[in-house]
């Protein structure tokens, strides 16, 4: 469904991505692990064109794209097939929870308001927030905001959703509710790429796990392969450190 090849990205003279490949099949849940600064966020942002990659190719639903020279129209078209969930939610601050979810449908997809709001209501229900539809972001807890953000990403029925550390900004007691929602989506067969530091979560939900460091993929495999018998010493070391922290 989606394949990235040899993606490169530099900021100034810092090489942040140095030839990353990534292949996603429909229904895959892929967890990306890696130490801070390894380029995980940058990878997701390049895949959704929030950053422009220097080079690399993307294959999406059989179409071929050069990441270094994307046309505006293609970017707009591809974004309609994807959802993005940010570490810090980025809910529209001047819109209620319901409006946040409906906004993209009304504005980008030109859906009649009534239809958009009824979809938005369904999405809020799905993330367990029907009773918060009229609340504005500043009236919601971090966990609730992130669930609204997930509902917003879901609303347009994307083919894939990218999650960038969806629980890192949350207090520990709030991470559970967000991870539950993502697990639910996984069970429904949603295709997702999740950058996360939650190893337990990655292990139970991910079909495949990718370990990144210094802008390259160090190791990639099924959750069992990576967690139970990692091949690379660097992966073992990282996992040891992470388990200790959690």
């Amino acid at each position, binding site marked *: 469904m989606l394949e990235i090849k040899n993606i490169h990205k530099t900021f100034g003279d810092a090489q942040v991505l140095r030839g990353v490949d990534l292949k996603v099949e429909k229904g895959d849940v892929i967890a990306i692990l890696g130490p801070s600064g390894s380029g995980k966020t940058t990878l997701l942002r390049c895949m*959704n*064109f*929030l950053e422009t990659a220097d080079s690399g190719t993307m294959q999406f639903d059989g179409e071929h794209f050069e990441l270094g020279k994307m046309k505006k129209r293609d970017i*707009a078209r591809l*974004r*309609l097939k*994807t*959802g*993005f969930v*940010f570490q*810090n939610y*980025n*809910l*529209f*601050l*001047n*819109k*209620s929870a319901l409006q946040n979810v409906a*906004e*993209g449908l009304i*504005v*980008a*997809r030109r859906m009649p308001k009534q239809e958009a709001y009824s979809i938005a209501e369904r999405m809020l229900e799905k993330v367990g927030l029907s009773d918060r539809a009229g609340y*504005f972001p*500043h009236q919601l807890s971090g966990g609730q905001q992130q669930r609204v953000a997930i509902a*917003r*990403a879901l*609303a*347009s029925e994307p083919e894939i959703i990218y999650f960038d550390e969806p629980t890192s900004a949350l207090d520990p007691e709030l991470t559970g509710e967000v991870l539950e929602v993502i697990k639910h989506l996984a069970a429904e067969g949603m295709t997702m790429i999740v950058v996360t530091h939650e190893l337990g979560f990655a292990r139970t939900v991910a079909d495949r796990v990718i370990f990144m460091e210094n802008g390259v993929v160090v190791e990639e495999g099924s959750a069992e392969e990576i967690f139970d018998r990692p091949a690379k010493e660097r992966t073992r070391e990282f996992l040891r450190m992470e388990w200790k922290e959690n």
Partner: protein
Amino acid sequence: MSDRAIHILTDSFMKILLPGLKVTLPLTAIAFSLALVIATVVALIQFANVRVLKQIARVYIWVIRGTPLVVQLYLVFFGISGLGYLIDPFVCAAIVLAVNEGAYCAETMRAALEAVPAGQMEAGYCVGMKYHQIIRRIVLPQAMRTAFPPLSNSLLSMLKDTSLVASITVAEMFMAAQRIVARTYEPLLVYAEVAVIYLAFSTVLTWLQHFGEKRLNRYQRAKA
């Protein structure tokens, strides 16, 4: 207070208030609305980094903020009259006030636009919205919230600055007061009276500001 003083005050009250209601307030309302339009356009040009236009915007702001309002009024009104063209003083006053205040409000608006977190723009892109849609529906409303108190300040300044247009023959409140002083030789009384009327106008505007802020705060907490 002497009978004469009371008589002058009551007699002049309507003579000052009426031009206030008929000239000062409409002039303020028209000029400020225009100023907001100018400010929004100029701020967005800079925010969106539109080449050439951005340079023009900077020059505009530089010139307007670097010269006194009275000089701008004289330059335009007497300058154009001096060339032999007829120009309506009220129209001239409205345009100069708008162009003048527009420069200050543009800076307010630009700062407010820049204060909107970049993530708002990115979230808009991610749900498929286009630049202009995100600006209109997400960024501008939030910037307006931030800009509201300083813009209210500008509105108050403009209300008071309209007193300067007496100098280009607009018959507003302050000119009415000057005329009464010329007739009665009671500057202390009459200027105090006009000051109180300005204060009353300002007070109403300040109430409106509080009311407006409350409404805006319904959907967005004031930024620290």
